[in-house]
């Protein structure tokens, strides 16, 4: 029996009650939220429960919602059940002052670098990560560049000397 989004939602609500919420279906993919304390329990359950079997971590990335007070940062997990070919997405939100989220690297070896990347760009502190340091940016960097507070350079600025690049 192919598992449907309704079935997943029902199973998760049975198990976690109020700790899974905001279910929606985006272009066929079920997505929902969970409190950040719950992320490991949820992933463990999704992996271990035989009728769900989400054993493959497709993607893990961060998102910054600057207008979302107290929930500025989100970590987005994409999980995949390869046998049934069903994907789900869930998010955990955290405040930008205390961006602490439990690491998934014990469950999925793949999460190791993806969490480092998320730390690198958003400053999410993954508790329990074996080697949480910058990965794509230089170690000396002292800010988290993909946060919305760092805009790209204003393309209309005129104070820059671009002569060497043929734009002077």
């Amino acid at each position: 029996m192919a598992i449907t989004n309704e079935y997943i939602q029902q199973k998760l609500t049975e198990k976690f009650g109020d700790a899974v919420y905001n279910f929606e279906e985006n272009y066929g993919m079920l997505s929902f939220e969970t409190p950040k304390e719950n992320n490991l329990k949820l992933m463990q359950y999704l992996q271990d429960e035989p009728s769900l079997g989400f054993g493959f971590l497709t993607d893990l990335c961060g998102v910054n919602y600057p207008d979302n007070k107290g929930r500025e940062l989100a970590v987005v997990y994409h999980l995949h059940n390869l046998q049934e070919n069903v994907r789900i997405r869930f998010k955990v939100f955290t405040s930008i002052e205390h961006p602490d989220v439990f690491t998934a690297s014990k469950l999925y070896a793949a999460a190791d670098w993806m969490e480092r990347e998320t730390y690198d760009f958003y400053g999410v502190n993954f508790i329990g990560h074996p080697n949480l340091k910058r990965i794509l940016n230089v170690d000396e960097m002292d800010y988290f560049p993909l946060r919305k507070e760092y805009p790209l350079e204003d393309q209309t600025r005129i104070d820059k000397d671009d002569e060497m690049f043929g734009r002077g």
Partner: protein
Amino acid sequence: MNEHHIILPEGSIEKHTTTLNLGPTHPATHGVFQNIMELDGERVVSSEQTVGYIHRAFEKIAERRPLYQITPLTDRLNYCSSPINNMGWHLTCEKLLGVKTPKRVDYLRVIIMELSRIADHLICNSIVGVDSGAFTGFLYVMQYRELIYEIFEEVCGSRLTTNIGRIGGFERNFSNTAFTKLEKFLKEYPVALGELESLLKRNRIFMDRTIGGGPISAERALNYGFTGPNLRAAGVDYDVRVHSPYSSYEDFDFTIPVGKTGDNYDRFLVRNEEMWQSMHIIKQAYQKIQEFKGEEAEVYHANVPEYYLPKKEDVYTKMEALIWHFKIIMGEVDMPKGEVYHSVEGGNGELGFYLISDGGRTPFRLHFRRPCFIYYQAYPEMVKGSMLSDAILTMSSLNLIAGEMDA
């Protein structure tokens, strides 16, 4: 450094291992990768990789660009098979915008994608040959990659970083020259592929070098998030083209080769067989395209004027095209709100695009799931205990592309 490193006081004479800094610009690494290896004689005790040397902040840049300007950024991910990245991006946008493409566009896209898959695997496999001591094969097959690039050039005007196609289809129809070149390729390439295969496949030296080198079990590969040929070489038959068909892949008949041991030799075999399968798909797609008659045979884009950039001649001569051109370029057409994840089977595995739109002109957030970046994590585990020269071979057989890794 991990727990396997032997930590001794500085200047200690008791250290029995050698620390070797391999890369970032070493001729054997085929790209900008750094590996700090701890060697016991010639055996790798442990290694730690550094990535990010060509990080270009595409995800940040994309937050400032309208959809059609992001296509050139995707070129530079896996630059050995840029058209697949371009198509993956167009398909993501089309999913978000709800654009349905005509069958002929799908088939043309399939031809382009499979050609680039061949170009990608061809480089990887011949480089595995080079690293095990056979330079000839690499040099010989490059002229067949050239045939592929000539087709790309004919279709979109560029060769490596193609920026091919637009949201909704292609920028122009395939010319007759393009089809002639495709026919030439279909005729000449199988011979060369057969030669490359017979040069390496049952070659005693090659087999001794690659069998058992850099193995990974299916279980570990899944845990490490492997996809694509590297996962299939470990024995898991996961292919995005079959699992979640896009661009009408469900209309084609092809098989997915799987390996057993996940070692360098199996990866070589899987890629080799995939090239034959790609040829098979291209032939079918070309046949299907020839079956279109009349007006249908001229279709090369979907009828979505609000997203598809019109032809330049039309912009100069037709009022409506000028209006749409203006609206698209000046950002008057907003995209719908939503979150979409779409993936395609890239040269290295599942290339995913996670796009969050808040209804504006540019993405709110765009994340690339780069298969290379994810599976390169497994490298220390795969080379532990192997010879240094086999570690080099493992690196090339994983088909690591620095551009894709660093985004």
